[in-house]
């Protein structure tokens, strides 16, 4: 077995939390059950990974199999990477007839025709997600297994989730291969980025709970249940306002959990509005500034701002439009007359 492959497997196993190593190796399926029985999974990780490498040598693992283990690891822990969302466009009206084998063939052929030194692996999952792992090389060097890009694609949708790596220069090539393989015409990057792959999927596939007005009797949640145990001496002075805030919040954010985003960024190119007497800026130029909101869970924290009394309800539509517009990067320019609108940056 190749030294580099052995080292790669060793390092991949080291990344896995100790309690998960056995399950992940079982999912991998490269080592037999009897072989796995011989490993003591209670020792320190260094030793576990060493044992795994020895067994892999017995089975003569090559880079393709090692890559599969890497995909399984990344599929279990996708939130360690930053994902961007790309959208593809097509003009035709042909019925979508996605053939997986065809897709894989076209993708590999397109990519390899431009760059011979790439390792490409595919893995399909139950939810129709196709994971593609690409290790990039150059025309003169072998693929670097530590510089990988990941692509997640759900068939017959126009959205692709990409976790590129350091090598941004390979992105155009990757985009081209995707477009060709999936029978679309072009592709563009959306202004949507985050760590939580599932949340990004929820946003573009509209799987989160948007509050639609319907007549269908939904089970009434505990709203305004008279708290029988509350102290009658405590009177809520602001009850109607509190209820209004809850109602408005619910209309905007819906009932369910919000998709998880870590930041929203607003690039302002608007005129600074000051007292004309103060005359802060001599020239009437747009005042450039960048506003970035960060949070472990941005949308949930925005949802709780008004009920917590930290902001007025309803919140600014610039904040609440994030899931619906499927973007968390905004460029705000001056709109004539009205308050600044946002324009999609091409």
């Amino acid at each position, binding site marked *: 077995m190749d030294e580099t492959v052995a080292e790669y497997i060793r390092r991949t196993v080291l990344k896995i939390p100790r309690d998960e190593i056995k399950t992940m190796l079982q999912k991998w399926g490269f080592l037999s059950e009897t072989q796995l029985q011989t490993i003591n999974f209670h020792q320190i990780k260094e030793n576990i990974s060493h044992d795994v490498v020895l067994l892999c040598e017995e089975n003569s693992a090559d880079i393709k199999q090692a890559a599969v283990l890497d995909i399984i690891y990344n599929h279990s822990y996708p939130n360690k990477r930053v994902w961007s969302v790309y959208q593809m466009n097509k003009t035709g*009206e042909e*019925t*979508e*007839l*996605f*053939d*997986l084998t065809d897709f894989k063939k076209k993708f590999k052929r397109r990519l390899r025709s431009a760059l011979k030194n790439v390792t490409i692996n595919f893995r*399909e999952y139950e939810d*129709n997600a196709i994971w593609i792992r690409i290790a990039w090389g150059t025309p003169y060097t072998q693929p670097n297994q530590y510089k990988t890009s990941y692509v997640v694609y*759900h*068939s*017959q*949708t*126009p*959205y692709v989730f990409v976790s590129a790596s350091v090598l941004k220069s390979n992105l155009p090539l990757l985009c081209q291969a995707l477009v060709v393989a999936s029978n679309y015409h072009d592709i563009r990057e959306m202004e949507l980025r985050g760590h939580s792959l599932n949340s990004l999927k929820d946003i*573009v*596939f*509209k799987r989160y709970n*948007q509050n*639609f*007005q*319907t*007549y*269908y*009797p939904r089970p009434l949640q505990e709203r305004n249940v008279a708290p029988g145990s509350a102290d009658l001496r405590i009177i809520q002075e602001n009850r109607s306002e509190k209820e209004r805030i809850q109602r408005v919040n619910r209309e905007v954010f819906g009932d369910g959990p919000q998709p998880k985003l870590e930041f929203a960024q607003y690039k302002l190119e608007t005129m600074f509005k000051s007292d004309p007497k103060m005359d802060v800026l001599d020239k009437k130029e747009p005042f450039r500034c960048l506003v970035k909101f960060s949070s472990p869970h941005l949308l949930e924290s925005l949802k709780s701002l008004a009920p917590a009394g930290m902001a007025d309800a309803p919140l600014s539509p610039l904040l609440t439009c994030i899931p*619906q517009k499927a973007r968390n990067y905004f460029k705000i320019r001056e709109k004539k007359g009205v308050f600044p609108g946002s324009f999609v940056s091409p």
Partner: protein
Amino acid sequence: GVFAHLEMLEAQAHEAAVKQEETEQQEEKLARLKARVQELRLQRDELRAKVDLQQKGQLGKEGVVSDPAQPSARAVLEWKIKSVKAMLQVFYLTGISGKLTKRGVCFCISTAYEGTYLDSYYLDLLTKPEVQIHRHSVPSFIPLEQIAKKYLQTDIRRFLSVLSDHLNAYAGRRYQADQLQEHFSDQIEGTLQRNSLCNLLVFNYNVSSKSKTFLFNVRLLYGDLCCSLPTEVTISCAPDAPTSLAETAAAHSDLFRRVALHKAFRSFGSAEESMD
């Protein structure tokens, strides 16, 4: 066809409008009667009190027995709420229901397959300055933009009908594939290859003949996105399979074209049992 469906929708809309008119008239009538009921209630209570006194005096009976034939105002209100809820439930069960919003209409398309209710999808439409989709929860592999471009501005009924056909067919295909994986996984070898629209299924399954099992490979292509039955079925068996199996393959192919996937597999199971 589409026209039959349109006519049916039109008839439904007419019925709904008539029903609504009736409900409104009934409501007015009810309000008037309510006021009358209040008057009569007062009278009744007075009379009842008199009767009570007399009864207590004569027979020593305790308590008041309220007249079950005369419903109280509360009972009337409860009945009213129940019947309105039932009406809304009926609308929901017809598959397409809508609610007027401040800026337009919000439609709910519910899907079902052979008696089982599946997911619901929502469309929030704005009506001014022109009809446009504000938000929706339709999956991105359903060609919503295409359908909207064709029909949304010109014929909204047709738009809803076509979209409902797509969604129902997709829900039906997915349901069949899910049922197959859930209940007949022992007959399937390897993975069931499918895609987001569930319009291409490829898998291998076991067929037993004369106490030997053979592997059939089947490719189901659902060319019509508004249909939940395949338009093309290709079954191939291993080269070493006996020629009698070709007949079985043809029979299966025909069955898959006519019958829901999981029902087809159920019939295989019972056919085998009857053969043994």
